[in-house]
């Protein structure tokens, strides 16, 4: 029985281009206080464009209604549990949004003189300090724009270091449970990917690792807890094996939400790692970003960090561009500053105690859900779960109800689905990360829904495989979308 939602009318809406009618406008500019200039004269005929074919023309009320109506077609954290495994969809305090909109922070130009940017630089310095303390590392760059960008920066650092030692080496090890960005990153840094098998405990197979690591291995990328939500308890051993052969341990810190305040990757032997500020340190995901992927490193990698670096001098902070060993910039300007502000606001709000409490609540919620669901769904690995738990659809798939169908059916029950079919090493994975900000009530409702779907899979599989039944948009044909892609609106439809 569905307890969480009821149906209600939601407004239909055309595309902007269909709404558009000539002459409508939603803007007004102040009158020009200087003489107008003839574009053709100033730029040359050939450089001036004709009107923008097909560009919309709507009124202000049509504009706000358009986006308001669209918004009502979305599910969101503000509406309920969003248990996407590996994505840490937690509630992000609204005060972060207000902080990021502070006039003196929002409207400052990256090229204004350091003397007029001290507040911004202090914020970045404070965040670097806090992240170093939380990760147990020595230095932090805030430049990368997202997790994958941080990974790339991290592997660049590894390669730059090894090159400076005379041999960049050829291979980077990646567990078969790794997130897709890991192998993709390795390739972008010019390395070959070598997959490391997981053992039956869902952890890196140490024996296999021993065999694989030689002095042609540049590094290993380890996610800890890994994408199964399992803590790699041999992590220190992994570091030892790598270090013994002159290879580095890169840690994917996307799951730091499971460790903040209780364990520090730096203490466990990681040489470099990135953090997903938009996950652990709370920037709303905004339908796909923005985020920030700071990279924290041990001292010996610090000289290679992207430039510029913050430098403390008598007058205050200065940007230091004079860094010979730096890999250079990984993007223009100083990083996603607005996201950095939100992250610092989050850390200030929690303090050390609060960060630990949040971590514990994240573990509690994940373990609680696992406990409630284990009788109905097959847990992928028996090892204890940290901040997320991963099930397999084996039992339901046998009834013709794969993980993807269960996910769609969850929508009818008023929830956003979990992460589907990842990690790849699990047969039909159901990857569930509730995060610390969910209440017991919401978790119980979710468990009820999952259990009820398990029953439906037995009694009425068709009901599940044809879901969702309640949404304004029924099952979307993704195959057709990919077969002949229509990626933009055009007048003839």
């Amino acid at each position, binding site marked *: 029985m569905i307890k969480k939602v009821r149906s209600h009318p939601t407004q239909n809406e055309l*595309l902007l281009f269909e709404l558009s009618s000539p002459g409508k406008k939603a*803007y007004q*500019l102040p009158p020009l206080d200087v003489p107008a*200039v003839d574009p053709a004269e100033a*730029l040359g005929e050939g450089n*001036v*464009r004709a009107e*923008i074919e*097909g*560009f919309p023309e709507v009124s202000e009320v049509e*504009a706000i209604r358009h986006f308001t109506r*669209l918004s*009502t077609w979305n599910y969101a954290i*503000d509406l309920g549990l*969003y248990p*996407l495994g590996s994505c840490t969809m937690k509630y992000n*305090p609204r*005060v972060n949004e207000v902080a990021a909109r*502070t006039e003196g*922070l*929002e*409207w*400052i130009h990256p090229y204004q003189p350091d003397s007029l940017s001290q*507040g*911004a630089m202090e914020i970045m310095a404070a965040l670097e300090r806090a992240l170093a303390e939380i990760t147990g590392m020595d230095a932090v760059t805030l430049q990368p*724009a*997202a*997790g*994958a*960008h941080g990974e790339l920066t991290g592997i660049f650092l590894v390669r730059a270091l090894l090159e400076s030692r005379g041999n960049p080496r050829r291979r980077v090890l990646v567990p078969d449970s790794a997130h*897709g960005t890991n192998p*993709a990153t390795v*390739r972008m840094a*010019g390395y070959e990917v070598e997959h490391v098998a997981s053992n039956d405990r869902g952890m890196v197979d140490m024996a296999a690792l021993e065999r694989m690591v030689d002095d042609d291995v540049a590094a290993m990328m380890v996610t800890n807890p890994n994408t199964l939500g399992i803590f790699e308890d041999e992590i220190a051993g992994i570091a030892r094996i790598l270090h013994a052969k002159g290879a580095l341990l890169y840690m994917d810190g996307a799951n730091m939400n499971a460790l903040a*305040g209780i*364990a*520090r990757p730096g203490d466990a032997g990681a040489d470099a790692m990135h953090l997903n500020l*938009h996950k652990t340190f709370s920037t709303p*995901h905004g*339908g*796909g*970003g923005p985020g920030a992927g700071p990279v924290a490193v041990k001292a010996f990698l610090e000289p290679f960090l*992207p430039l510029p670096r913050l430098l403390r001098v008598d007058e205050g902070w200065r940007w230091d561009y004079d860094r010979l060993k730096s890999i*250079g*910039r990984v*993007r223009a300007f100083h990083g*996603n*500053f607005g996201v950095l502000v939100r992250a610092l606001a989050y850390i200030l709000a929690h*303090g050390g105690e609060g960060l630990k409490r949040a971590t514990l609540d994240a*573990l509690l919620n994940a373990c*609680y859900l696992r406990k409630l669901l284990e009788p109905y769904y097959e847990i992928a690995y028996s090892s*204890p779960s940290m901040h997320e738990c991963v099930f397999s659809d084996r039992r339901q798939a046998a009834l013709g109800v794969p993980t993807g169908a269960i996910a769609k059916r969850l929508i009818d029950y008023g929830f956003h689905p979990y992460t589907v079919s*990842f990690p790849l090493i699990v047969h039909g994975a159901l990857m569930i990360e509730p995060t610390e900000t969910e209440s017991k009530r919401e978790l119980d409702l979710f468990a009820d829904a999952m259990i009820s779907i398990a029953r439906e899979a037995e009694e009425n599989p068709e009901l599940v495989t044809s879901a*969702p039944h309640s*949404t304004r*948009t029924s*099952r979307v044909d*993704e195959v057709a979308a990919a077969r002949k*892609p229509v990626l*933009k609106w055009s007048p003839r439809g």
Partner: protein
Amino acid sequence: MLETLGLARMEDLYGHLPPDVLLNRALDLPAGKSEYEILDYFRARGRENAVGFASFLGAGVYCHYRPVLVDAVVSRGEFLTSYTPYQAEISQGTLTAIFEFQTMMCQLTGMDVANASMYDGSSALAEAALMAMRITGRNRVVAARTVHPEYRETLRTYGRFSGMEIEEAGYDSESGQADLTDLERRLSGDTAAVILQSPNFFGIVESVKPAAELAHRAGALLVVAFTEAVSLGLLAPPREADIVAGELQSFAIAPSYGGPFAGILACREKFLRQIPGRLAGETRDSNGNRAFCLTLATREQHIRRERATSNICTNQELIALMATVFMTVYGKRGLRELAEQNLAKAHYLGTKLKRRFTGPYFNEFVAVSSDPEGVNRSLKGRRIIGGLPLRRHYPEVEGALLVCCTETAKRADMDAVAAEMNSR
């Protein structure tokens, strides 16, 4: 809940971790603060930056008016707190907006396909170069020195470890445009891409067409970058390009000390399979209603892993949405009028000053001064931030400031700048 788990203390939740990895002390961070203290903290930091200054800085980050609708829209929790729209049936709002964004990007750039956003303009340009390498199977890139210096630095970092060889072509010291003869000289059988930016870093409009002919004659692709999206309201789109990489900060995104912004990649239809990043496509739902979903995921890391077109995952969707609202508010005529106001303002000041280059310029230009730092120092006293000294990036252009005037520039401030610069 602990009882349900048969645990006594919260700490038991990680009892299975090896003791040697545990942090056996409290984090060394100040105690948690209330939201009022937090806002006080950031307001105090904000006051340590320039607030309420008139600014003539551009150089890749532009100060334009932001329509209030933009904030009203992106503050809605349904946009702000949703994830990447993997589950199409409950993400049609975001997906529809992305589809509209992609369409408007094509309309502006003259390309056939545009993605849902990249981190920023500089990383978009680097990805464009990598894309060109994949398409052509070649490994050399020729970039004009008139491309934003930090974009070129980013390109170098990306290129360094991917076997990309980068050459830089000079510029005409008269016009300030890329020197196409020098550029042509550098083309060879393994040139994957020629990279131009227009308007270029000096604010000058480049001649895309001849550059395209050179590139194509050499079997290379032309990649055109832009940093000032407002210029697309007035300038001819770079139709002759094969790939366009740009920065949308000008579309309602606050300078915010350099980010978050939103990059964009657009290209010709035939290169579709090589474009990185998210793409929203039109399709139908099982009832035959129009619907949208993320598509061609086989290009992406979560499906293709090490064979993906890029490792990009989270991008800048909310910023792209802000840009979408901005484009909607201004619309066809508004974007044109906005661009014309920028043109008029820049030319008002530009004609009062001694300009270094003669090429056509949009809303910024290089002004010559015997003492750029001195000028800025005394302007600062009048709460005006002057132009950007070019010394660091272009030592050869001595005594010069890159000056930008958007629609927000006030005549009185421009007069003050002119007076200051002409008084020396």
